[in-house]
């Protein structure tokens, strides 16, 4: 029980929240298992980040190389596998993010270290690592054990572990040499791109009506858009609606879309997958309408309605119009 690694995640100069969430959980696991918590930071010219991390970890293992400027699974795998082989941490944590889920599986196979992904909790008792994760779109939780091994790997769900204010750990920054001798030839990072904006900025709207799978067909969207207009707000959606091409990308609320904090969020036919909830849970007032009384959305909503949204929407629109003193 020597060491726990947390792979620091950063992009375009910004340390990402998941890093601190992993370090918070890592600190707890390190204390319980009598291990040292080590943040692993790979990048180019990232000493400032190393200093920040030293408040949250006992060690900051820093590898700087211009070939590590942007995340690339190939270069990260090469460097991180070297560090793991050398220091043999009993646990390595990564984010269940676009980079963590890209890197962790390969690394696990390469090092023959059991991997559990998308964990929402981890416990270590009697030499057994038990993780909690979700299945079936968050409708059930499972507890699972990892096969006994010298070292384990886990990816951690975003916004799951709270970051508490704790005394600085005054960690030691350890500069390690880069093991990269040449540019990666099999895989190359080119650039970041943002899809063009559609003209509606849902992050500034005060009232938002969100639609999900329950909308069934694109032809049903205009009546919901009218409801949003009646409220003086904007129409947003969960992932399936953008996937189908029914609304543009920047209307998507969730981890791969926008984070919104409106005064009112009405979720229509949205089951409430974790990724969506992450983007809307800070709304002041949440009203959810779904046919399934067990939909996870009701766990985050203030008010819930178990009903066919198409039966409710016309009445709701006219009641709001009445109250606003408009002609029905």
């Amino acid at each position, binding site marked *: 029980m020597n060491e726990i690694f947390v792979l620091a995640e950063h992009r375009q100069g910004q340390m990402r929240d998941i890093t601190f969430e992993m370090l918070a959980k890592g600190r707890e696991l390190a204390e319980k298992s009598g291990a040292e918590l080590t943040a692993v930071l790979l990048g180019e010219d990232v000493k400032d980040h190393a200093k920040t991390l030293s408040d949250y970890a006992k060690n900051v293992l820093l590898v700087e190389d211009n070939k590590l400027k942007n995340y690339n699974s190939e270069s990260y795998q090469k460097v991180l596998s070297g560090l793991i082989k050398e220091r043999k941490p009993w646990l390595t944590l990564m984010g269940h993010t676009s980079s963590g889920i890209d890197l962790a599986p390969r690394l696990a196979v390469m090092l023959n270290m059991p991997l559990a992904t*998308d964990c929402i909790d981890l416990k270590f008792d009697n030499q057994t690592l038990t993780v909690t994760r979700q299945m079936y779109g968050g409708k059930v939780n499972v507890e699972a054990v990892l096969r006994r091994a010298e070292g384990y790997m886990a990816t951690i769900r975003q916004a799951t572990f709270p970051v508490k204010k704790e005394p600085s750990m005054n960690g030691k920054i350890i500069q390690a040499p880069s093991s990269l001798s040449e540019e990666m030839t099999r*895989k190359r990072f080119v650039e970041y791109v943002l899809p063009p904006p559609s003209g509606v900025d849902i992050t500034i709207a005060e009232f938002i009506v969100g639609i999900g799978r329950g909308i069934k067909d694109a032809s049903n969207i205009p009546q919901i858009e009218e409801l949003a207009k009646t409220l003086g707000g904007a129409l947003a959606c969960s992932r399936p609606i953008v996937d189908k091409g029914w609304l543009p990308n920047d209307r998507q609320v969730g981890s791969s879309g926008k984070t919104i904090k409106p005064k009112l969020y009405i979720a229509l036919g949205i089951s409430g997958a974790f990724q969506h909830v992450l983007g809307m849970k800070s709304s002041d007032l949440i009203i959810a309408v779904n046919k399934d009384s067990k939909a996870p959305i009701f*766990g985050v909503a203030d008010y819930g309605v178990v009903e066919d949204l198409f039966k409710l929407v016309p009445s709701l629109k006219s009641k709001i119009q009445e*109250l606003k003193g408009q002609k029905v």
Partner: protein
Amino acid sequence: MDIIVCVKQVPETAEADMKINSTGKGIEKTGLVFDINEWDDYALEEAVRLKEKFGGAVTAITIGTEDADNTLRKCLARGADKAIRLTDPKFENSDGYAIAKILHKVIKDMPFNLVLTGAQADDDSYAVVGPFLAELLGIPHATMVKKIELNGEVAKINRELEGGLQEIVEVKMPSVLAIQTGINEPRYVSIMGTRKAMQKEIKILSLTETGLSENEVGEAGSWVTIQKMYVPPVEKLAEFLKGSPEEIASKIAEILRAKGLI
């Protein structure tokens, strides 16, 4: 352009009423509708589009019971040329790692330029099989793929990152690409197409043909073993509004008025 697509048949649970079964480790599957995993549906469509543009053949592979033929037939109807089903009682309870090992043994001896998988499965959401497979095959990969452009030996990929951002990466082929939903619009299948697909052969392989031992597959060959399944505890449940749609609408309007929102 020979493409292998790994697909999985999963229960549709988004709007279904689900129960945990008597083992306490899985869900009660009777009464649920099964279909191709949504991510795999997009992967299959992408493979067929690439084939239509560059030629070659698309092979759909699944691990499952005879029921999974429905999913393979759907793939054939949509444009896959061949279908392989890996079936063996020993494969049951395999996690993503065991699944990748089985797929690897079959794929490694097949000719291919690309292997496409879904970025994750709707049921267990491990999101691991693509990159596991790439490491076992010793070839590069990309996950969360939202766009593919082929240019000689290089696949130019748009990957979905967080907050609406994407990155472009170039990956040398052969490679494994794990496809994110929304990359394309999966086509509808005509009744004719479905009928034709009924006549196509599905090749069936078992544990013996993979060359793996019993201990390398199923629970014995897995890294992650489910101990118990339960309905997640809810910290704070919504206050449910009841009545006719009109009554509920009035209640909502009243709540909005009371909070000064209208």
